[in-house]
């Protein structure tokens, strides 16, 4: 069996004797005898490292790794530069706790300060926190930030990611607040419906995803105008890769910018760990939940970094805190920072442009096949929905060719995604297979 206890049995005996005890059982004298397990734990025996390596690798081998991934829907298969995989694996970063002790944690604190700066650059916002769990919780926390006694309703666009909508619903259920869904029209938020729903006086905020779940660009500025006209707060959930080239949430009028940071160097990894980024304007700085790192000086006057604005947080406000979050996804934030630094402004823009170009190439190719149409005709980024007959057959044929096709969605649609990783050959092959299947 495996063990990470360094002391030998001899040493353990000696330590017990030093305490005046004879056996390990004596350490648990407060545990009622009836519930003491006494070695009856019903799981398999432990293993050596080689055995466990074989066993877990065998599980990994049962999964199918596709050479081309044309599926997104909240989990995006971008190229991850080698150095981005390497740096977060350094044991110092990997195995440190939250940087409460600033004198021993300047490296982590500075890396978070740099992350916060990069997120502000990307979103145009003034203040970023040190990250939260993922994009869905970032949206839910942002919505909670906007609610007060008089404004307890959160409006959410129906074109947002279903998991994000459901997470916001869950957080609202917790506090007894209400979420209302703003319907969709032609694959985008229905502006007229939003205008109508904003007339209720108790609306705290409106959340929209840009580009939305179906890949469509929303009229983000116009939406923001409507929201502000109704004195509500405007939350935008933005794809961070797209922000290298697309108008910032700040310029669209957002009060809070959030999003799923996974595309910034994190593997798709069956859904996690991912990264929720969260930024706001100076006005709402002290309402922002989560960890925040600030710059200060030490007692010699040198620049130093600390966890700051802690009086907002649960360990001080306890039941009066607006969120119970007391950690971030520091290693994922580090990953994102290394990614953004490695790519630089040009590289990020290139990844965004290529993803968009490849998605359009794929869409054009598919729609040239008789029977295939685009469900929504608005401008899109790197995702789009097709309608075609025999969805299952198409996806199965692609699977046999080592291609993970788009995600089947309601009413026979397929939500496709392309990133810079898909080369022209793979896209041509995808189109050819679809054509072949649909010819029958």
């Amino acid at each position, binding site marked *: 069996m495996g063990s990470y206890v360094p002391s030998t049995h001899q040493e353990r005996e000696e330590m017990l004797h030093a305490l005046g005890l004879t056996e390990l059982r004596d350490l648990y004298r407060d545990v009622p005898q009836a519930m003491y397990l006494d070695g009856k734990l019903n799981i398999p025996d432990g293993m050596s490292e080689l055995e466990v390596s074989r066993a877990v690798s065998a599980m990994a081998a049962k999964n199918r790794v596709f050479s081309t991934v044309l599926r997104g829907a909240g989990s995006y298969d971008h190229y991850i530069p080698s150095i981005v995989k390497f740096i977060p694996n350094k044991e110092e970063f990997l195995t440190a706790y939250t940087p409460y002790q600033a004198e021993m944690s300047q490296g982590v604190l500075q890396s978070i300060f740099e992350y916060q700066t990069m997120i502000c650059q990307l979103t145009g916002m003034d203040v970023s926190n040190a990250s939260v769990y993922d994009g869905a919780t970032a949206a839910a926390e942002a919505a909670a930030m906007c609610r007060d006694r008089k404004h307890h309703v959160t409006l959410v666009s129906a074109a947002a990611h279903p998991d994000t909508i459901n997470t916001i619903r869950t957080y609202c259920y917790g506090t007894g607040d209400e979420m209302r869904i703003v319907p969709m029209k032609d694959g985008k938020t229905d502006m007229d419906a939003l205008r109508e729903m904003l007339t209720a006086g108790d609306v705290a905020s409106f959340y929209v995803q840009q580009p939305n779940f179906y890949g469509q660009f929303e009229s983000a500025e116009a939406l923001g105008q409507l929201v502000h006209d109704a004195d509500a707060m405007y939350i935008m959930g933005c794809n961070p890769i797209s922000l290298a080239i697309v108008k910032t949430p700040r310029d669209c009028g957002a009060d809070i910018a959030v999003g799923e940071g996974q595309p910034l160097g994190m593997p798709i990894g069956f859904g996690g760990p991912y990264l929720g980024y969260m930024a706001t304007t100076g006005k709402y700085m*002290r309402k922002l939940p989560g960890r925040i790192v600030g710059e200060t000086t030490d007692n010699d006057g040198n620049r130093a970094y600390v966890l700051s*604005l802690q*009086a907002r947080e649960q360990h*001080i*406000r306890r039941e009066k805190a607006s969120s119970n979050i007391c950690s971030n996804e520091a290693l994922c934030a580090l990953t994102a920072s290394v990614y953004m630094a490695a790519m630089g402004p040009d590289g990020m823009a290139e990844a965004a442009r290529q993803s968009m170009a490849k998605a359009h190439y794929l869409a054009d190719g598919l729609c040239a096949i008789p029977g295939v149409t685009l469900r929504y005709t608005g401008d899109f980024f790197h995702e789009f929905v097709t309608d075609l007959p025999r969805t299952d057959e198409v996806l199965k044929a692609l699977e046999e060719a080592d291609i993970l096709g788009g995600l089947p969605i309601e009413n026979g649609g397929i939500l496709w995604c392309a990133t810079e990783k898909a080369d022209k050959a793979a896209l041509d092959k995808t189109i050819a297979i679809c054509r072949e299947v649909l010819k029958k």
Partner: protein
Amino acid sequence: MNYPTNLQYSKSHEWVMMDGDVAVVGISDFAQDALGDVVFINLPEVGDDTTAGEPFGDVESVKAVSDLISPLSGTVREINEELLDTPELLNSNPYGAWIIKIENISDSEEMLSASDYEAFCQSEEA
């Protein structure tokens, strides 16, 4: 510790100075000393109602947050916005740094004179 005699004090360590029908409210020297370095203050909005004995805002130090308890029931007439940018005034000049002004006063906590309040603080410290 300083206890100006022209003010009245509540047991939750706020001071009150009456200016006609309007009450000016701040925190005492004893309170600021106990709080330590104040880093931020959360203020109510003008027009909000206050209730005697209930919180109307809070002050943050680095590792603590403390409610500000209203000595009076009434309406917030004015707030001292200068404190949002320079909360340190609460430490350096507690009797100069008023926090809110209350009008339409309808009810009050038990208020102490300077000498009674000083005795009360000494008993709290003991």
